[in-house]
C-alpha cells in the first residue's frame, strides 16, 4: 500500500544526499588545486614559488603591479587581505614564527613597537635602503622592517563652505575649541580607526600628556562628532566630498585634496577641499619579511620590489600616500594639490607603545562615554 511511496521518498532523500555530498566534494577538489598555501610547498612544481603578501583591507595597488616582479624573478605574488591594520598585527603576533604569509605590508608607526616586540619579522636590509626616506628609516633600529610609504593625517576643510559664510577656516588644533567652529568637526574614533588614532596622537603631541584629555573635553563641549571609521567621517558626514554631510571640517589625509581633484568628473576649477598644515601627524607604513617563512630569499626579493622605484611610483595615485623611496617620481597632479607639512607632529614609537592602552582607555572613558 503505502510501502511503495515510502520507498520512493527514501530514494529521493538518498539521491539528494548523494548529490549534496558530491557537490561538496567537487568544491573540495576544485579548490584544493588552486589553493596551494605558501606554507605547504607545492611538491609537484618546486621551482615555481608563490608568495603570500599579507596586507590590510584597503591595500589596492594597480591590478597587474606584480606582473613585472613575476616576470623578473619567476615568483608569483598572492595578496591576502587580513582586516584592518590592527587585526593584521594581532594575527601576525599570535602566529609569529609560523606565519600565515611570507611578507606583511602595513604596520604603521603607531603599531611598530607592538609588532617588533612580538618578533613578527625577520630582519632584512633591503638593497634600496639608501634611497628610503631618512626620517622614516630612523624609526627602525635593526632593519626588522623597511619603510614603504608616508602620509600625514591632517584636518581637511570644505573650502566653499567657509568662503560662502566668510568665516576663516581653522588653522590650528587650538582653534577648534572656539565657538566659531561649534558643531562643525567630525573625526573617526581612535579606537577603531588608524587616522583617528593618529589624530588623537596629534593632540597629545600638541597639548602634552597632561593637557590632551582636557582639550578633548573642550572639543566635546564644542560639539565634535565621533564616528567609527574614516570612510564614514569623510564620505558621509563631511560636506566637502561626494557625500551630503553637513560638517565642513574632518580628520583626513594631507593627500585627500588631490584625490578629490583627480577622481572628480567633471573636474572642478579649484580644489573643493584644503588642508590645515599645522594639524598634521606623520604616519609611516612599513613592510617586512615574516619570521618563519619557508621562502626567505624570495620574500626578501619581494621587499626589494616593494621599495623599488617601479612599485613606489604606483602608490600616490592608488593608495594616496607618499612613496618612501625618495627617487620615485610623483605625478604632477598629486604634487599640485597635496600638502606636505614641513614639521609634522610626531610621537616616539616607544612612548606610544608604552602608553597606547592607557591613552585609549582615557579616551574611551572621558570622551566617548
Amino acid at each position, binding site marked *: 500500500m503505502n510501502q511503495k511511496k515510502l520507498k520512493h521518498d527514501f530514494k529521493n532523500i538518498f539521491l539528494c544526499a548523494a548529490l549534496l555530498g558530491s557537490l561538496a566534494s567537487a568544491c573540495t577538489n576544485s579548490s584544493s588545486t588552486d589553493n596551494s*598555501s605558501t606554507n605547504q610547498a607545492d611538491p609537484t612544481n618546486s621551482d615555481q614559488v608563490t608568495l603570500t603578501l599579507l596586507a590590510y583591507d584597503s591595500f589596492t595597488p594597480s591590478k597587474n603591479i606584480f606582473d613585472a616582479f613575476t616576470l623578473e624573478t619567476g615568483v608569483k605574488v598572492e595578496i591576502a587581505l587580513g582586516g584592518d591594520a590592527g587585526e593584521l598585527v*594581532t594575527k601576525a603576533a599570535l602566529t609569529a614564527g609560523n606565519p600565515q604569509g611570507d611578507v606583511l605590508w602595513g604596520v604603521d608607526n603607531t603599531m611598530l613597537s607592538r609588532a617588533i616586540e612580538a618578533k613578527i619579522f625577520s630582519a632584512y636590509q633591503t638593497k634600496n635602503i639608501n634611497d628610503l626616506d631618512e626620517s622614516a628609516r630612523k624609526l627602525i633600529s635593526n632593519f626588522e622592517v623597511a619603510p614603504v610609504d608616508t602620509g600625514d593625517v591632517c584636518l581637511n576643510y570644505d573650502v566653499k563652505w567657509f568662503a560662502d559664510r566668510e568665516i576663516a577656516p581653522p588653522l590650528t588644533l587650538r582653534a577648534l575649541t572656539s565657538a566659531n567652529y561649534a558643531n562643525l568637526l567630525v573625526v573617526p574614533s581612535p579606537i577603531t580607526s588608524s587616522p583617528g588614532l593618529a589624530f588623537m596622537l596629534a593632540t597629545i603631541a600638541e597639548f602634552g600628556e597632561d593637557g590632551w584629555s582636557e582639550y578633548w573635553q573642550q572639543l566635546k563641549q564644542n560639539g565634535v562628532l565621533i564616528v567609527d571609521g574614516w*570612510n564614514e567621517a569623510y564620505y558621509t558626514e563631511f560636506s566637502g566630498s561626494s557625500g551630503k554631510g553637513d560638517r565642513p571640517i574632518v580628520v583626513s589625509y594631507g593627500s585627500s585634496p588631490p584625490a578629490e581633484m583627480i577622481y572628480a568628473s567633471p573636474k572642478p576649477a579649484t580644489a573643493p577641499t584644503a588642508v590645515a598644515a599645522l594639524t598634521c601627524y606623520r604616519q609611516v607604513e612599513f613592510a617586512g619579511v615574516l619570521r618563519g617563512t619557508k621562502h626567505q630569499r624570495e620574500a626578501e626579493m619581494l621587499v626589494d620590489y616593494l621599495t623599488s622605484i617601479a612599485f613606489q611610483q604606483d602608490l600616490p595615485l592608488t593608495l594616496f600616500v607618499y612613496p618612501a623611496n625618495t627617487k620615485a617620481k610623483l605625478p604632477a597632479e598629486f604634487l599640485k594639490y597635496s600638502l606636505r607639512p614641513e614639521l609634522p607632529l610626531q610621537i616616539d614609537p616607544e612612548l606610544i607603545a608604552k602608553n597606547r592602552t592607557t591613552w585609549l582607555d582615557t579616551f574611551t572613558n572621558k570622551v566617548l562615554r
Partner: protein
Amino acid sequence: MINAYRHTSKWLVVAPIVVMLLFVVAPVLNIFSMAIQIDSFALLTTPTTRNVVWFTTWQAIISTIVVLFLAMPIAAITANFDFFGRRMLISLISVPFILPTVVVGVAFLELLPTSIHRSALAIIIAHIYFNFGLVVRIISTRWQQIHPHLEDAARTLGASRTRLFLTVTLPLLKKSLRSAGLLVFLMCFTSYGVVRILGGPARSTIETEIYFRAMQLGDVSGALVLSISQLVVVGVLILLTTQFGTTNSAEFRQTIYSRIRRPQNFGQKLFIASIALISTVAVLAPLVSVVRRSILVGERTNFFAWHIIFTDPEIFKSLTTSLKYAVFTIAVSTTIGLFSACAIIYGSTRYRFLNILTTLPVVVSAVTLGLGLIITFDVNPIDWRGAWLMMPIAHCLVAIPIVMRIISPTIRDLPNGLRDASQTLGATTWKMWRTIDLRIIQPALLTAAAVACAVSLGEFGASSFLVRRNNETLPLMISRLLSRPGETIQAQAYAIATLLIVACVAIIGVVDYFGTEKHR
C-alpha cells in the same frame, strides 16, 4: 521500542564529538593556554569594563521586554483567529530573524533619521526587528495549544476579558514567554554586527569590546578575560533556556484542538486588520528602503547597479562562493545535527553532554574562536589556515546548534507506540528508523536545512575573520562595497543586499509551505 536504537546511538555520537573537539574545544583551549595572563583579570574591575557590561545588559533587557510586549498582539491574533493572509503574515514576520546582520544594519542606516544613528536606540530598534518574529512564533504556538474550554469556563463563571487573560491565558503562556525571553536576551547580549554598524564608537557590548581589545589594542589576554566572563553569563543562560526550552521549536507539533475561529464582530476584524497592517509595514519598511537604494542613484531611478551585479565577474564569484558554502553547510550541519539529536534522544541520558558541547560555538565569542582556529591549524598536515575550508566549517559550527534544536523536539515527541508496532511486525532497526522516524522528521529536516542555508548565506562575524584571497562571500562583499565612495558602488551593495533578502524570503517560504504543513 526506542531502546532498539540505543545500540546505534553509540556510533552516532562519534562525528559530533570529533567535530566539536577538533574545531571548538581544542582551538579555544589552545588560545587560552597560549595567551592568557593572570594579571589581565584586573581588567574586570576597571570602569571601562563596568560600562561595557552595564550597557550590554541593559540594552538586552530593554530589547527583550519591548519584543515580548510587541509580540503579544500578533501572537494573539494568529493564535485565535482565522483570517485572510494569516499564514502569510506568520511567514512574513519570520523573515527578519534569518536576515543577515549586515543587511539589517544597512537597512536601518537607510531608514532611520540620522539623528538617531549611532545611538542605543538604533541598536535596540534593530534588535527588536530581528527577534520579534521568533517570539511571535513561540508564543503563538503555545497559545494555540491552550484548550478553549478553559477560557469558556472562565467566561461562564463571569470573568471579564482582562481577568480571563491575566488569570488564565497569561499563566499558561508563562513558560513560553520565559523561554522566548531568555532566547531574545541571549541574542541581544551577544550581538556583534548590529552594534558595530548602528552603535557608533561610543556603544560597545562585551562582544565588540573583545574585538577591540584583541585587535586594536593588541591585548589578546584582556580580550580572553572578557570572553570568559561572557562565557559564564551566557553559559548559565543557555542552561536555563535548554531547561525551559522545550517549546522552542514546537511550531511543528500539531495542535490537538482547533481554537482558531473566524473573527465574529467588527471590533475583532478591525483589531486584526490594524495589527496585521502595522506589523506588515514594520517588517517591510526596512527591506523596501534597501531595494529603493539599489535602484536610486542621485535622485533618479537607475538599474545600473543591477546590471553590474549580474555581469561583474568579481560579484559573480562571490555569489558562487556563497552558494558553494551554503551547500556545504546544509550537507554537513544537517548531518551532524541529525546525528547528535538522535544520539541525545535515543541514548536517553547518556549523551546529554552533547547538548552542551554542540552549544559551545554559540557561547564562545567569535573572536576567541577565530584566533584559536588560526593558531591551532598551523602545522602540517592540517595547516588549513589558508585553505578555503575554514570558512564553511565556521558556518557549520554556527548552524549545528540551531539545526539540532529544530530536529530534536520532533524526534522526542514521536510516540513510541508506532515504533513498538513496527518492531512487533518484525521490522529491522534500520527499517524501523527510516520508515517511522525519518518520515516524521522529514519536515523538520527540511526546515533545518533551510535555516542552515540562511545561516551560511548571512554569516558575517566569523567569515570576516577567516576571509582569504579568493573566497569573499556576499555579506563580506556588501560591507566592502559600502566602505567605498561613490553612489553607484553603494547601490551595488544594496542590490546584493536585495538578493539576500529575496533568498531569505524564499527560504521562509519553503519552510512554511513544505516544512510545517504536512500534506495530510
